[in-house]
């Protein structure tokens, strides 16, 4: 049985680590957290739809069954890393029940 879970207080440093560098080298604990977040069921999984190749992406959610259209979740991004950060925030709230609030957000 998986024992992974996210602690909304103790794991805040991991959230900071991700926000600073969404892609690239991650600490072992952030890797564990990301596996938990990315392992959510396919039915709920967001992904990026290419609006303009290499330039613009829309965040969409695909239905789990074939034949259904996607649902647009948010704005059109011009930077993929911003989409990664927004999805992280969505998943943080879903898995911990609380909004992710970091120091930068309070300023």
């Amino acid at each position: 049985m998986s024992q992974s879970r996210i602690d909304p207080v103790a794991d805040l440093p991991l959230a900071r680590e991700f926000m600073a560098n969404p892609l690239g080298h991650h600490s072992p604990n952030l890797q564990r957290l990301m596996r938990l977040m990315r392992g959510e069921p396919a039915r709920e999984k967001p992904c990026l739809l290419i609006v303009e190749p290499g330039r613009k992406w829309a965040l969409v959610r695909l239905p789990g069954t074939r034949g259904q259209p996607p649902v647009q979740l948010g704005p059109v991004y011009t930077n993929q890393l911003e989409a990664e950060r927004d999805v992280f925030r969505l998943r943080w709230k879903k898995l911990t029940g609380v909004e992710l609030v970091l120091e930068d957000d309070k300023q």
Partner: protein
Amino acid sequence: MKLPELTIVGYSNGLSFAPGETVRFMVSEEGTRPDYQASLLRMHSFDDDPTACGLIEEPVSAAFEGRYSARHQDIETGSHVTFDADHAIAGLRAFTAQAYIWPTTPGRGWQTVISCWDAASGQGFALGLDENGAAALRLALPGQSEVVISTGLALREREWVLIHASYDDVTGEVVVGQLPRLRFPLVDTQAVVRHLVAKEVPAWPPLPLAITARQSRMQRFDEHFNGKIDRPRLCSRALSHPAVKALAGATIPDEVAASVLGFWDFARDMTSVRVIDLSPWARHGCLVNLPTRGMTGFNWTGDEQDWRRAPEQYGAIHFHDDDLYDAKWEADFTWDIPPQFPSGCYAVKLEDGNVPGYIVLFIRPPRHAVGGNRPRIAFLAPTAHYLAYANYRLADRPGVSEAFRGRLWQLGPEDLLMHQRPAFGSSTYDMHSDGSGVCYTSYLRPILNLRPNTRLASLAGDGYVLALLRHADLPYDVITDEDLHEDGLSLLAPYSCVITGGHPEYWSLAMLHGMEGYLQRGGRLMYLGGNGFYWRIAFHRELKGAMEVRRSEDGTRPWAAEPGEYYMSFTGEYGGIWRRIGHVPNRMLGVGFTAQGMDVATYYRRQPAASDPRAAFIFAGVQDEIIGDFGAGFYGAAGQEIDRFDLSLGSPPHALVLASSENHTDNMLLANEEFCSTHLAVGGTESPLVRADMVFFETGHGGAVFSTGSISWVAALACEGFDNNVAKITINVIRRFIDPAEFPRIDDKPDQH
């Protein structure tokens, strides 16, 4: 915001064509646009990433260019056996139908196993599974309304069972039964039901025969069965229980011989699309939409793994309701390729006002006329790779894929269209609708992901090689995997240098032999990729454009072949990764697959061997210690899938390891064929085997091999206007490889690495 939509798609009657040949183009409008514009483009790149050279499309005049009325064309998926009309069964009054089946989706609607059904009059019978997954008979006697008689007991998924049904016209008794091969206490699925219906009715009109489907009034086949079928039988009288068992034997029993109407042995003619009837009627059938052959039968013991050695245990065919070989669309227009038309990558662009559709074509040099005044360079377009990935259903599998990729999935409008329209068929990376792996693929259907701006591990990355050749003003021909398979060495012989794309992953034995022969005769090979020469494939001998892969035994793979099903049905060859079949890529390329990771790429660091005088031409004008710390898509030249030099795997000991990648993340994971037991030290920060090695060696026959060992290499070529060390190294190697001066023989000396 309106999301981008792809609504116009098409395909041609091949991927590779020679000048003078005629191409047919089949097009379908998937939206509501009334017309579309068709035009021909020469493609000099296939990717629009802003960090590289952009999408370079050169309009080319062609007679077909113009505006066409758009129409929707349907695709009929699902495999079955059809029979000629003269095999319709006439004068039938009573019957027994039976087969061993291994159902994979019992309970998913009515599924037909054997049908004798006259759609026009709605008369006949069909043996199959009812909506609840129980063996059942649909029966419409002459002058009677249709009845369904079911055992009422659902079959178990993936368990062999003999199902049977009979009608006795004298007594009016219908018997429907199911006899599982294995029986379990408490959950026994054996059942027989008897039912009285009308008797002494007139004979049926001639009944068209079909296996695993029922012909509808629209002349379409529906109610497809998912699963394996073995030993289907048909008889013109109601048989007793012992006679049903006898009829399920390998030979026609004497006591029923006079009444047998069909006695099929699916193990015969395995490599063809024919199914053979051993009865005197010779009701041979034809497989439609390529169901999977070479499958273990109900009687497979496990003693033999090769269907050629024990064909009697491989009498099963696995049918799927989403099998597709040929979409069979009508052509919208054709094109007679002019006799002197230049070789290259081309595309027909279809513009209906939404996202444009593309039909990609590779124009090769003239057939049987290669030699003479050809360019010195051939780009080997990896069409086998494009076929293996044709209609890769990324959107159907984000479940595990994001964790695998280590970043959000990116989908294009083609992925959404595939997700919304399952009928385009799947790639060999997908599962059928019943969860079994897809072994076969073909190009006689729209390949939605063979277009610009798709994955950099495919056409989008390969296009950067074309862009580099154009930028450096280096003339080239385009040849394809399929051409190499068919023409062998004679295709390669005219060229001084053959260049691959970023991911030449799929190779038939004939392709390997052609390349080996080329290198033995002074040929020079530039392998600009990763995970190359990896999977064994087979092409069908009768069906153009059909290709097979078995995900056997080991290797990094999207699904695993079932036990006993490692041998390819198209040829009887043992399938799987070449590393395990005696053609390890390290031997020919110097490197072989070692790791994959899709989050970010990294760079190479120059190694001491780069200073060897033998490598001086490679690094002319390149002093950098770090190579390729940039690239389209993944930010580096070493990434996605990478290969390493390894003497223990057969890498030539005299090869120079010029540079090696470093700083991979833990998402770059060691390939699973590299370890026997799982452990945690498989990521890029821990495993010393996770690296891409750039290798050069002379073949000893005047030729040489240069390998980069990374899919991401090609996506770095066009950065900074091609003014970068990846492009410089690549051009240096090309220029030396097209120089006729032979590479000197290397004296034997100790390995320097």
